[in-house]
């Protein structure tokens, strides 16, 4: 492949996913200039390893690189706060408590939702963003985050329960009993 056709081919494959790439980076690092730098670094990395891309799902491929670049950046800036693995094993009763308050969710101000989502630990935040905003399947999320599909399912479940608890407390109301234990 000549240099030029490699560039063209790369741009054809990678640029359509710019929206998803930027959204993910922005949600993981929380500020605009850093998200832009990370996306650029990720695209250059992707271009460098383009030879290692043998077709297949280009969005998952690119999002994996963006996500790893974000984690490197968070680590370098000592901002990486992962959920304690012990805590991760606690089973969250979470959504199992029927809660009429959930019904209010639809009418929630998107600013409140945004703040609550920002507070979510990064390992829950990323699966929620990939699932709800980018519409990735469990299998695709498992590839991007490099975890088993079963873990994708449990993180989503727990992430949603935490998110609900955060939203409930932001609304200044009592959350369900089961939810408040892990808030």
């Amino acid at each position: 492949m000549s240099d030029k056709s490699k560039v063209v081919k790369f741009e054809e494959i990678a640029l359509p996913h710019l929206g998803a790439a930027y959204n993910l980076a922005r949600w993981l690092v929380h500020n605009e200039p850093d998200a832009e730098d990370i996306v650029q670094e990720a695209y250059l990395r992707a271009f460098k390893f383009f030879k290692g891309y043998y077709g297949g799902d280009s969005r998952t491929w690119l999002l994996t690189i963006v996500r790893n670049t974000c984690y490197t950046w968070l680590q370098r800036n000592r901002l990486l706060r992962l959920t304690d693995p012990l805590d991760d094993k606690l089973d969250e009763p979470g959504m199992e408590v029927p809660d009429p308050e959930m019904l209010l969710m639809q009418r929630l101000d998107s600013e409140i939702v945004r703040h609550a989502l920002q507070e979510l630990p990064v390992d829950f935040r990323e699966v929620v963003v990939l699932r709800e905003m980018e519409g990735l399947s469990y299998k695709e999320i498992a590839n991007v985050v490099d975890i088993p599909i079963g873990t994708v399912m449990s993180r989503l479940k727990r992430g949603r329960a935490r998110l609900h608890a955060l939203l409930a407390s932001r609304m200044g109301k009592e959350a369900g009993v089961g939810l408040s234990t892990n808030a």
Partner: protein
Amino acid sequence: MGCQQTHNLIHGYLDGELDLMNSLEIEAHLKDCRACAQTYKGIRDLQSAVGNSALRFDPPANLERRLRAAVRTESTPDPQPSMIRWRWLVAGISLLAVVAVIWIAAAMLTRESPGDVLAQEIVSSHVRSLMADHLTDVPSSDRHTVKPWFDGKLDFSPPVKDLSQQGFSLNGGRLDYIGNRPVAALVYQRGRHSINLFVWPSNKAATSERMSVSQGYNVIRWSNAGMAYWVVSDLNLAELQQFVELLKEQSQARM
């Protein structure tokens, strides 16, 4: 399905990751159980609150330009000074060309062939069956149990072959829904690998096997004697081909 199991599977259900039988059971349970129905609605509301496009961050307008420039700098050695002006012209033209190419490529990509869509569906169904631990509706290694089980559930009778002698044991059958119709899924086991064989009637002429790889799974499809067959597994291609050969041999032996 009870409340506990519903709670375990409801996220998978809402995310469209659950197989047909479990989905139907959840739906039946949600009709009867007010508490679970409320949980369902709660999660769905949360999903739509987060999925709200207002929460998405759009890339700044100049980011795409910045990336194109960065990639080009990365790929080319420093240009000669006299060539710079010329290069800009070329860059401008190639930029236009790239936009045109992307436009055409995007138009072509969005028009997936029906085969590709089906392959996606087949692989997703395979993944779902493994994930919810719901490989079989009728767990049996006896083809005389599996075949009659489909009577009354399908408008056709799928051929069920016993290949245990050859190292592919029959684990059972399952009702599934592919390409807008109910189909038979036969589950075989080779070592630790599960194989899903999907069968449904097809009026197309017999075709030889076509192989593809989707999300890391090997997929082989063919049609024969009025039936369409799709096989999907994480088993290596050589052994999966052997499996297909055996199936075809057995069908011929019976004719």
